[in-house]
């Protein structure tokens, strides 16, 4: 009896070891392509709303960590991407969360030019009703581009609502809760930007280190 269960246990162990080894090999082989495609996907979204001519630095690496903030809707630190031209901040890409979608959180990325105008908004993920609330996706509809070029200057606080609520943003019949949440989140992101732009645009610590090193070398 004891011998039989030992045999069973060894058998299980044997297959567990083989399985783990197989997985380790696959991970090693695919790990780099996966990281690459994830990066590419993110870059694709970022370059959609922050055109290449608006920065000359490596925007994906030039990041600022933003602590959680009510205006961003995040409950954890997020990363903002900072674009610069000749070292001068030109555009910021923020990741924000609209907490009050029709079914849960809507994650957005928003690019804001240094003059406070929005470059573009994109939805990263959402759980809105397919066919009704999902027109906020660029793949389904151009609606999300209504934000291009808007700012706190050219839209007063009262305008940051959908037309049904007396604001200035279009929406589609059948789904008002979804665009309402998105408009609110974009408005809040602009407010956050207005309050925090200086600290966001601080030179990246890694860039600083590099600059110091090259100075050191000169000496």
């Amino acid at each position, binding site marked *: 009896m004891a011998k039989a269960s030992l045999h*069973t246990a060894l058998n*299980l162990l044997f*297959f567990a070891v083989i399985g783990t080894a197989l997985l380790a090999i696959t991970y090693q082989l*695919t790990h780099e392509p*996966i990281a690459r*495609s*994830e990066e590419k996907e993110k870059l694709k979204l970022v370059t959609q709303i922050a055109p290449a001519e608006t920065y000359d630095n490596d925007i994906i690496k030039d990041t600022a960590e933003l602590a959680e903030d009510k205006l961003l809707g995040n409950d954890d630190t997020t990363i903002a991407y900072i674009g610069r031209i000749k070292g001068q901040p030109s555009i910021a890409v923020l990741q924000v969360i609209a907490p009050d979608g029709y079914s849960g959180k809507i994650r957005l990325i928003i690019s804001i030019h240094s003059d406070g105008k929005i470059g573009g908004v994109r939805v990263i993920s959402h759980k809105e009703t*397919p066919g009704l609330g999902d027109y906020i996706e660029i793949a389904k509809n151009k609606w999300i581009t209504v934000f291009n070029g808007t700012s706190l200057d050219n839209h007063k606080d009262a305008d940051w609502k959908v037309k049904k609520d007396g604001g200035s943003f279009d929406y589609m019949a059948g789904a008002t809760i979804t665009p309402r949440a998105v408009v609110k989140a974009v408005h809040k992101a602009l407010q956050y930007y207005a309050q925090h732009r200086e600290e966001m645009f601080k030179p990246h610590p890694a860039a600083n280190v590099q600059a110091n090193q090259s100075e050191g070398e000169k000496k």
Partner: protein
Amino acid sequence: MTTQEFKDILYNGVWKQNTGVVQLLGMCPILAVSSSVVNGVSLGLATAVVMALSGAAIAPIRNFVPNEARIPVFILIIAVLVTVVQFSMNAYMYGLYVVLGIFIPLIVTNCIVLARIEAFASKNPALQSALDGLAMGLGLTAVLAVLGGIREIFGHGTLLSGIDLVFGEAAKSMVITVVPNYHGFLLAILPPGAFIALGMLIAGKNWLNLRAEQKSRKQADLSVAIPAN
């Protein structure tokens, strides 16, 4: 493997014991991902690959695994293979991976995989088991393709939307707009639409079976009747 055996396994998997409309196994992915042809076929093919691989992997070791450790070992092997498929899709078909996302790891829990291992691969040689898994997977893929097609046409008025996720941007022109300026029919896209369409598919399959049965009975009657004359 004889040709007859080959034909039998194929016929059994794709038609007679079809997982989608006869065995009704693996309902979760069928209802969830059949919202479009591309989604359905992609997950169907991923499942077929996993089933063929696991059949081929488990059949040769079936005599070494003690009976009481059978299920955990089988599940372990299936889980490893699914993870390998998942990693590969994530690495080389990222767009599609994002769409299918959560349903790929769920292939492990799709009862059809373990069911075929138990019913077939644990009693047959490797080649036959791999073929059985592949045939069953292809049967599932066919159901998912038809179901996805029905739901996509009724729901969005298109066919093959999202094909660019599989073949890259250039394939965007392959999307067929069946009904131009279609306003969409929400029911078809949501899970109830999947239930209704699947019900109709099952009814259709039963009707075909019944008709074939009647036909063969008539023929039998005829051949009995002739000598009596």
